[in-house]
């Protein structure tokens, strides 16, 4: 299990957090600094447990609503939590990109495809790409029926 780690970078009024590893009890969340924009990249977060969910909710709670938070490259485990845990995706957060799992019935493997705002989704509207797997067989979206529900709150 890769340890949780956060790289922090400041660019004027924007703070960029690049998170990686497994978000759980041992994780150290960064001390929040005041900024008008927070950009959080979650692309290398490998998973989270229920304590990680609580950590995240506690960490984002004191952020003023006037601060805009952009979430990029949200992994599947984050997206499913957007839809099931209150306070995990707050109203000042905007998801700019997230992963969608696709499944190949031919070789029974999974491939997570990045959906980016303005390309594969705009508000709640989705434009699913065709992803080809083994023998050029199209892969199927492999997500629960409510997977994209959080986008309705992003409109």
């Amino acid at each position, binding site marked *: *299990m890769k340890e949780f780690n956060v790289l922090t970078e400041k660019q004027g009024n924007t703070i960029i957090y690049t998170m990686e590893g497994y978000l*759980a*009890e*041992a994780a150290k969340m960064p001390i929040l600094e005041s900024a008008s924009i927070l950009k959080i990249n979650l692309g290398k977060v*490998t*998973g*989270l*447990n*229920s*304590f990680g*969910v*609580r950590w995240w*909710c*506690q960490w984002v709670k004191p952020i003023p609503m006037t601060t805009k938070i952009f979430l990029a490259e949200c*992994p*599947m*485990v984050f997206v*499913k939590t957007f839809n*099931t*845990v*209150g*306070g995990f995706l707050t109203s000042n957060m905007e998801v700019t990109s997230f992963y969608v*799992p696709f*499944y190949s019935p031919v*070789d*029974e*493997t*999974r491939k997570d495809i990045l959906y980016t705002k303005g390309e594969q989704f705009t508000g709640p509207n989705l434009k699913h790409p065709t992803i080809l797997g083994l023998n050029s067989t199209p892969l*199927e*979206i*492999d*997500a*629960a*029926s409510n997977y994209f529900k959080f986008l309705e709150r992003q409109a």
Partner: protein
Amino acid sequence: MRSILQDFSHLWPKSREAALAPILSKVTYLKYPEDSNLLGLEKRPDKVIVITSGEDFFAIRPFIFNGFRHFVNRNRSDLPQELLASCLMIAKPAIFVQNPIPFFLAGFSNLQILTDTERNLTISFKKSTQKAEILHELEEFLAKNPKTKSLSDICIQSADELITNALYNAPVDADGERMFLNVDRQEAVEYPPNKKATLFACFSDDRITIGCEDTFGSMTVTEMYQYLRTKFSSDLSIPRESTGGAGLGLKMIMENSANFYLFSERYRRSLVAASFLLSGLKSNMSNRKHFHWSVS
């Protein structure tokens, strides 16, 4: 009253009829949603199987709140083995108790899987500092097979919650008081010397079952109802902010998996397990779930 034998015996081969009939004949069922009007009339709802059909697992809340403990989805191909597991838990708990793990995995249909070391992982533990290493071993075990690897994130998350539950929620002292329930999950805990827990993972061609057994058997019926009432009262969970856990663990496991089992023998042992179908995420995270719990 309709018995499983009367209406579902065609699900099993004729050759097994003589062996199964004494079990199947003792168990009755209700159908959801057809029999919703009968749910309040059952005197022993804990002994009745609810055979569901819907896509909305949370729609069975009224049955859960009225004391039903066995929910089997009729639109799943593994209906026979799950019905049989429920029947055995209800009619012959003593047999079930002896070795419930094969039922979680394959309904006794393919017992050689259990002796195949490539398909099995068993790790005993006593302290919270072992958790990271156990999850790492499980991750490596899942990575060996492309089918299990594709479910690695939800399996690891579920195993983490099973281990945390066994370490912090299960332990009780000689007076039956919870030892670590309100201990912050960042604080290390260790079992008393005579106690241990075991995490197991085992996969067949169709599913992987991951479970955790502890030797406390501390779950009570009241606690289970309380938990289910809280967690099933809303689709959206809110993490607990007080000390102790976030209070999301078991629900996370149920959401991740296709089947959920909780079995507890008072002061002997508790076994919590989840099965994941090896046919992609959707089949597991859909609301077509089997759910069994039995607390004595």
